[in-house]
């Protein structure tokens, strides 16, 4: 028996899953949750267009354009459609809740504390009361927030009092 060929959708998801976040390469765009979905539709000249919906993590993130370009190039190489369009969407807001469990683990093993869970309704007050970060190096929760703003828009800076390491946390948003 011959294994069934992967469906076209599966091929596209697989290709997207191989693209890394330009700023935190440990995590893929799929695990980061920035791909809302994609669809094939017919073009007037009888061809087919693949449209991908990309959700920006932060509106001022300069990596958005890089992601857009990478997605366009990779999917064009697949030759699954005559044309590939990558559209930014705000129809649904990206939140850090969209990072998959595998993505959270990938962040942790590369030295980034995953974002604290905030639920679907964002409540700013939570940012001031929740235990905010677990040290990705030693697992201690004896950590303090040094700066809610970090080297990129999506990162905060913490310090671990137990292993005395500074570390970054992916921001809950």
């Amino acid at each position, binding site marked *: 028996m011959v294994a069934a060929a992967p469906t076209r959708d599966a091929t596209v998801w697989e290709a997207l899953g191989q693209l890394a976040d330009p700023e935190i390469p440990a995590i893929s765009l799929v695990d980061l949750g920035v791909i809302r979905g994609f669809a094939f539709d017919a073009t007037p000249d009888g061809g087919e267009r693949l449209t991908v919906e990309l959700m920006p993590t932060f*509106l001022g993130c300069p990596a958005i354009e890089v992601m857009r370009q990478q997605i366009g190039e990779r999917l064009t190489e697949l030759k699954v459609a005559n044309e590939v369009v990558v559209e930014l969407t*705000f129809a649904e807001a*990206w939140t850090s809740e969209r990072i998959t469990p595998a993505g959270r683990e990938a962040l942790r093993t590369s030295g980034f504390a995953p974002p604290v869970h905030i639920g679907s309704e964002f409540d*700013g007050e939570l*940012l001031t009361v929740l235990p905010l970060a677990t040290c990705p190096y030693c697992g201690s929760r004896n950590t303090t927030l040094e700066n809610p*703003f*970090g080297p990129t828009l999506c990162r905060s*800076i913490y310090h671990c009092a137990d292993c005395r390491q500074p570390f970054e946390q992916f921001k809950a948003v």
Partner: protein
Amino acid sequence: MTELDAQTQEALAELLLSMADDEFVLGFWDSEWTGIAPILEEDVAMSSVSQDEIGHAKALYELLAGLTGDDADRIAFGRPADGYRHAALMNHARTDWASSIARRFLYENADAIRLESLANSSYQPLADLVVKMRREETYHLLHFDLWLRRLAEGGEESRSRLAAAIDELWADAQAVFAPLAGEARLVAARILPETLETLRARWLERVRPRLEALGLPVPAAATPPDADGRIRHTEEFAWLHGEFTMVVRSDEAATW
């Protein structure tokens, strides 16, 4: 929603431009702190906040460009200085840290109230974008509220500088809620669910008790702003405009 008539669309364009220009101009002013803020953490924080604001401006300019068939970069960088529609609060040059904190406190609260209301806008693309913006702005609100408290409680010098800055900026801060020419249409269409004067009253209700709680003097007069609050500009802004358009002016035909 149904197709917008020409006058409502024009009014919506005016609203989007006012919001985008507020974020854009303030983002540029505060980006000047990069490298020279009082502490290293604030170099990082102000740079990050400014980057957020310019990102919000970009998204709003793109929404506007889609509506009017214009180009977002042209709107952002291709207008003469007198074509900008930011509130008078953003006309002031960066001076000391207390003044920047005072402006951020007044503006972040005004912006939060504006966004809370627009989250219910009948113009869905704006309501959607606002959901995204509010999540990011929450960090700004918390951060500058903390700084307000630090300066208020820090000592005589920080407190008196902060109080003087709030007093100086107070009248111009009202202009974030300056009436727009097409405002009645926007309210009728529920694109803007409440009048700007209603939002200003809500802002005063939020800002005044916060200042009182910190023992800071609350400026008495809060005359409703007139439309001129988004039209009049200063020499300081003309200088900033020269700065942020410098690269574009160096080769206007370049492709970015």
